[in-house]
């Protein structure tokens, strides 16, 4: 599946304690500030596999995640949707586990599992009782070692994926809006701008040869990170990792293609006709600063100030004061969180509204609410509130879903930054952000010329309404 995760699922990471300094003075207020630091042990096997261990004995469970650095951005040009179809194939049979047996193995040992395809990685994970760590590592290594899939399996999963696209995109109002649509309109580089879920005809055209070639190219230990979180002993885990993943061979990886997007100099507008929608909707997408730059950290806080929570500027203006919508949505990386991607990204805000309100009215209202961020340094107390909200989201991510949230951070930081320890320093990066930096970032990245405005236009109800098509230029 392509995991679609909303805002809070994006909060991530941990951090070291910034508030230690003021705790002595804070006698009347809260006793001491929240603080979280997770253990991080990081090393690489000779075959290049990145391994991250983070024991936590709160609950007798473990979460194992394997992240491959192949997302849907860089799938083959004539095979849109292939990275995701391939993800499904990873459950269809490996050297020692036939179709259905991987899932059975996890379930029958008391666990749950899933996989997802994102911009810059494809992940596979399972949560199991703590005593089943070796079982999980054996099974993940087995499928990293080789697939044993058949034409029949492929045909079956082409049917399943076709149904996934129908249920998530084609057969529902606002299908693909804005998470699948906006990148296609806002980006110019094919790698960032194609239909990630895939055209049905491309999905149907995939062959077993494509599957094996894709596996051979990208599914190798030197293109992957393994993260283990939960109730385990690190020394024992290392032995299992060595035993099962050690023998796997590294492969020669192709060079990463150029994923860059040019600076956008002119606002773009597009309208998507949606025969199934009953109310119009609008989304604004702004190109983000490059990940891990000072402006990027400032932009994450701008996201908190603009759209996260009922105190946010857009909620106050559009929901509370003007009643334009009931819910301002959006965020950074709608398929994950602000941390688990690598390439170019969009900051998106979107909402459903009534036909009586024009798109221009909404864009003006949004501009009005954003303007103070661009014209003057933000008040320190507002910036402080944004950092608190971000920390709160971050902790939720760390605690999310029996270790999966932490696995996601550790594996992403290992794959993209070669430094999973970033989870413990992340908050300090946000604390460096000044009101002046917020203003400078807003001036460049909240420029009207840097955005794409996408409208969903409900169609007058014809008797035989066709389902909405997902891609642009329909």
């Amino acid at each position, binding site marked *: 599946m392509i995991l679609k995760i909303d805002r809070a699922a994006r909060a991530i990471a941990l951090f070291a304690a910034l508030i230690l300094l003021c705790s002595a003075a804070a006698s009347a207020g809260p006793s001491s*500030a929240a603080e979280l630091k997770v253990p991080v042990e990081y090393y690489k096997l000779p075959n290049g596999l990145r391994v991250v261990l983070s024991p936590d004995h709160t609950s007798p469970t473990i979460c194992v995640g394997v992240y491959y650095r192949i997302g849907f951005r860089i799938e083959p040009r004539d095979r849109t949707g292939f990275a995701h179809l391939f993800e499904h194939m990873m459950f269809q049979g490996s050297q020692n586990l*036939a179709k259905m047996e991987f*899932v059975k193995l996890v379930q029958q040992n008391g666990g749950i599992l899933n996989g997802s395809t994102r911009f810059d990685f494809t992940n596979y994970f399972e949560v199991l009782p703590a005593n089943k760590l070796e079982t999980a590592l054996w099974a993940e290594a087995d499928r990293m070692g080789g697939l044993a899939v058949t034409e029949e399996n492929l045909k079956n999963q082409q049917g399943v994926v076709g149904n996934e696209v129908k249920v998530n995109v084609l057969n529902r109002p606002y299908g693909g809006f804005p998470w699948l649509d906006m990148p296609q309109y806002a980006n110019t580089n094919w790698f960032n701008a194609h239909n990630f879920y895939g055209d049905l005809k491309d999905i149907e055209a995939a062959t077993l040869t494509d599957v094996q070639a894709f596996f051979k190219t990208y599914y190798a230990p030197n293109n992957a990170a393994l993260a283990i979180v939960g109730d385990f002993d690190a020394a024992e885990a290392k032995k299992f990792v060595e035993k099962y993943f050690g023998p796997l061979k590294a492969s020669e990886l192709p060079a990463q293609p150029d994923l860059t997007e040019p600076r956008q100099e002119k606002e773009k507008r597009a309208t998507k006709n949606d025969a199934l929608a009953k109310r119009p909707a609008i989304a604004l997408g702004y190109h983000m600063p490059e990940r891990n730059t000072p402006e990027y950290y400032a932009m994450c806080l701008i996201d908190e100030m603009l759209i996260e929570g009922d105190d946010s500027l857009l909620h106050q203006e559009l929901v509370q004061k003007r009643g334009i919508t009931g819910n301002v949505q959006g965020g950074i990386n709608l398929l994950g969180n602000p941390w688990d991607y690598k390439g170019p990204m969009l900051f998106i805000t979107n909402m459903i509204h009534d036909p009586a309100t024009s798109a221009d009215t909404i864009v003006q209202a949004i501009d009005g609410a954003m303007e103070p961020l661009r014209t003057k340094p933000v008040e320190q107390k507002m910036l402080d509130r944004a950092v608190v909200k971000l920390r709160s989201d971050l902790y939720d991510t760390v605690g999310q879903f029996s270790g999966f949230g932490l696995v996601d951070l550790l594996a992403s930081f290992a794959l993209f930054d070669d430094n999973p320890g970033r989870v413990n320093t992340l908050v300090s990066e946000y604390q460096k952000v000044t009101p002046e930096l917020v203003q400078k970032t807003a001036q460049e990245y909240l420029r009207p010329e840097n955005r794409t405005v996408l409208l969903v236009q409900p169609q007058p109800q014809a008797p035989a309404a066709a389902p909405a098509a997902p891609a642009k230029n329909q």
Partner: protein
Amino acid sequence: MIRTRTEKLLLVLGATALTAIPAWGQKQTPPAGGPPKAFTVPAHETYALANGMKVTLIPYGNIPKVTVNLALRAGGLNEPRELLGVANITGELLKEGTSSLSASALAEAAARMGSTLSVSAGADETALDVDVLSEYGPDAVKLLADVVQHPLLPEAELARLKSNQLRQIAVAKSQPGQMALARFRKLMYGDHPYGDVLPTEESIHKMSIEDAKKFYAANYGAGRAHLYVAGKFDVAGVKKAIEAGFSSWAKGSVAIENVPKPKTQRLLDVTDRPGAPQSTVYVGLPVASATSPDNVPLMVTNALLGGSFGSRITSNIREKLGCTYSPNSQISRRYHDAYWLEAADITTDCTGKSLGEIFGEIQRLQKEAPGAAELQGIQSYLSGVFVIQNSSRGALIGQLRYVDLQGLGEDYLKTYVQKVNAVTPADVQKMTTEYIKPEQMTIVVVGDKAKISEQLAPYATTGAANK
């Protein structure tokens, strides 16, 4: 309908799953792992204030956050027929300020603690929730106490909230899953409040601020409230804040009992959605409620039949036929009420065939008890999932709220795993035969009528399911 930060935390496990009994032949056998580690449900403390409000404190984990959740026995069940939606509008109004805080001041106060106030009205309960950084536990309690006892319920905001509600209704009515659920519940519950998933536009239009105030006065009170605090927090400080914040809250009226008698009937109900590439199918019937001794055996049966990735129905219509992506069966519960439901979005051409396979799998389980290994696999699965369900502050509150609403008693969580593992193959067969009867199921289909009518014709009457 109300989205909050905390709600969004749940990573929904989609569908990437399958099933089959291991048969590894020449292949390597998976390592079995070590001896299992013990698990006990985290300890918690429950007590009542003098005014009857119950309190449960659950110190848990090392994430420096604490969730404060107030569950009130006030929901759709308490709405007058002509005022459907008033529970939700009242809940929304709670966020519009208190006698001491304006709406924006309230939003800022929650944000300074790292949270947003969420209020959600369900069928049986309205829940208020804030999820804050650990050091703000007592302040979060104080905030919730203020919101629930001293709301402004301002008339000036009502028109806006009604517009939001009308917009949500319009959107929900255009979603095939919501359309199917609404039909399914209406057919099953008729005029009982559980039969109305959505308010009517008419009831929203005519709702006045007096209606909301009346609903609040009649249904909000300490005697119907249960406060849950879970996570890492200062227990003494939170207790003190609870006493200070809630002890003067009036007891209010007692919760009403209105357990429905849902219809068990074969009925085929098709809503036309011309051009739809999939049929949204909801098929099910009433089953024993949470208080029945059959509850746990039914849960095991459901997980084996359609309620897990590896279940029989999912293996069949997804992994064999490729006709659907995320089919799922569930036991859906309200207060002392439950139904079994299989829901699936199925490729239009495949609709009749898949329905036949769903019924076929049920009948197979009625005719023949599952093998011991298959059942044991499901029992291990449920035992493992139980640990996961008790391993985060949000999940713990969810579990305890379920136990408390249904009145299952402290024992339920302590004996759950034992009960799951006591279920025999014969029990599963018996549960299927006794409760999951295709010939008595309501079948709701939202899809392209012209293309599916013929496929569905055999299921219009009770006889066909048995062919």
